[in-house]
């Protein structure tokens, strides 16, 4: 039985193609993936992200072990900051990638992936000790993402000029439709954008309100996937999971070695050893798209497998990411193959798409 977001009927009214994602019935596309993708790159797109999980936590870092549950330094976050990081198991495998919001000195919101919400909650409940209250608000708190270079102009009309004060990876409380809600300047598209947390009871109204602006169009998970892949962002369950570590995924930047965290010993051992598989990014010479599980062949030998691949609407070629046994230098030629399909590609740096407005300074 698939879960449905409070907006499922609105998606049906818009004739969206709906399909299962992470246990949820989600809109994959409305007008078409490429058109939606390009709209987010030039205007503003609205995403139903109600499937993702949110936990509210009251915890004093000095009197609890909350800080040890994630790879990032929570103590260094001022209230109003968001940070991206990981929850690891003892072997340093990624239980989930998440966003932490510091609401106040001892108040936090943690945002996790849809398919992992229940598991994450159980894990936190089991391992958190000390003076802590933990609440899973996923069922009552909805989330919309508004992403694209014009998103600030759209949101300013609804939330006021304060929205322009938000720097990348910060958040604030704003009044929208009479509700005081959290809006963060974060996202998963590579464009300037926001994540809006609204109670499920009002999320339909917010959806309608934002879509009434002609600069805004609804965007499905299909374009969300191509947008994030053009940035080289990992997707949990596909590029990273319990059997991959942040170092393998090339995400060591989100690990603070100056603190304790579950999985640190295992990760440190891997770092010192140095011999581990690596995530590489590659662009095809043609419009052909590498796909999940295609083999990566380097110098005639099988070197690894593709985890994510797609046609890149912005670049016009196939792009992808995948793990190889040992690093392959940028610029090297590889072949991605599956059965009779054989795609020539070149190892590249990330992001693939370099003109995104994500870190744009406000005018």
């Amino acid at each position, binding site marked *: 039985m698939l879960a449905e977001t409070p907006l499922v009927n609105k998606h049906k009214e818009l004739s969206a*193609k709906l399909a299962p994602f992470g246990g949820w019935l989600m809109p*994959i*596309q409305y007008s*078409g*993936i*490429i*058109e939606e993708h390009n709209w987010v790159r030039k205007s503003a797109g609205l995403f139903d992200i109600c499937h993702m999980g949110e936990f509210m936590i009251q915890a004093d870092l000095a009197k609890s072990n909350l800080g040890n549950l994630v790879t990032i330094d929570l103590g260094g976050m001022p209230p109003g900051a968001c940070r991206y990081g990981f929850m690891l198991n003892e072997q340093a495998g990624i239980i989930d990638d998440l966003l932490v919001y510091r609401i106040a000195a001892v108040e936090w919101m943690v945002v996790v992936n849809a398919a992992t919400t229940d598991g994450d909650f159980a894990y936190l409940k089991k391992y958190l000790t000390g003076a802590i209250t933990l609440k899973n608000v996923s069922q009552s708190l909805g989330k919309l993402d508004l992403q694209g270079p014009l998103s600030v102009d759209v949101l300013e009309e609804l939330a006021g000029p304060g929205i322009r004060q938000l720097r990348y990876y910060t958040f604030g409380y704003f009044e929208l439709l009479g509700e005081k809600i959290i809006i963060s300047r974060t996202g998963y598209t590579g464009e300037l954008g926001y994540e809006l947390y609204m109670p499920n009871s009002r999320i339909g109204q917010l959806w309608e309100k934002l879509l009434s602006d002609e600069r805004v169009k609804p965007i499905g998970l*299909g374009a969300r996937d*191509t947008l994030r892949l053009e940035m080289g962002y990992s997707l949990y369950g596909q590029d990273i999971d319990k059997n991959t570590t942040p170092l393998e995924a090339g995400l060591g930047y989100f690990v603070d070695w100056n603190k304790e965290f579950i999985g640190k010993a295992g990760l440190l051992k891997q770092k010192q050893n140095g011999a581990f598989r690596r995530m590489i990014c590659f662009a095809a010479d*043609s*419009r*052909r*798209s590498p*796909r999940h599980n295609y083999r990566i062949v380097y110098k005639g030998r099988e070197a690894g497998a593709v985890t994510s691949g*797609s*046609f890149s*609407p912005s670049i016009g070629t*196939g792009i992808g990411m995948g793990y190889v046994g040992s690093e392959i230098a940028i610029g090297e030629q590889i072949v991605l193959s599956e059965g009779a*399909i054989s795609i020539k590609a070149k190892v590249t740096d990330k992001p693939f798409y370099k003109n995104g407005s994500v870190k744009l300074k406000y005018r």
Partner: protein
Amino acid sequence: MIIPENLLYTREHEWAKINGDKAIMGITDFAQSSLGDITFIDLPKPGVKVRQSEWCATVESVKAASDVYAPLSGEVLKANMELADHPELVNKSAYETGWFAEIKCSDLGEKNKLMNSAQYKEYVQGLSK
């Protein structure tokens, strides 16, 4: 859903337009709509022999790569080279400018295994139930 009356159809959503001993083929409007934005097509090369119901082309959309099967056996005479740079023509016009290939048929009796438009329409309606 567009299903022209003068064409023949396969269960895998290819169409064929027979003209004498030649046939033009492509994928149906239902197929292009299900696939979504088409981004690349690997077409059969002129001179290649294809067999009915066997692989003859690959269509890639943003989401997936899908096999296309020959509606009839024969030798490929022409492939629609416009699709190399403009695969979206298949989304815009699956039966006209989005044609895939022309085949010189080796066994026209095979057309008995294909559906006419009324049968295909019923078949597609059955799929979406």
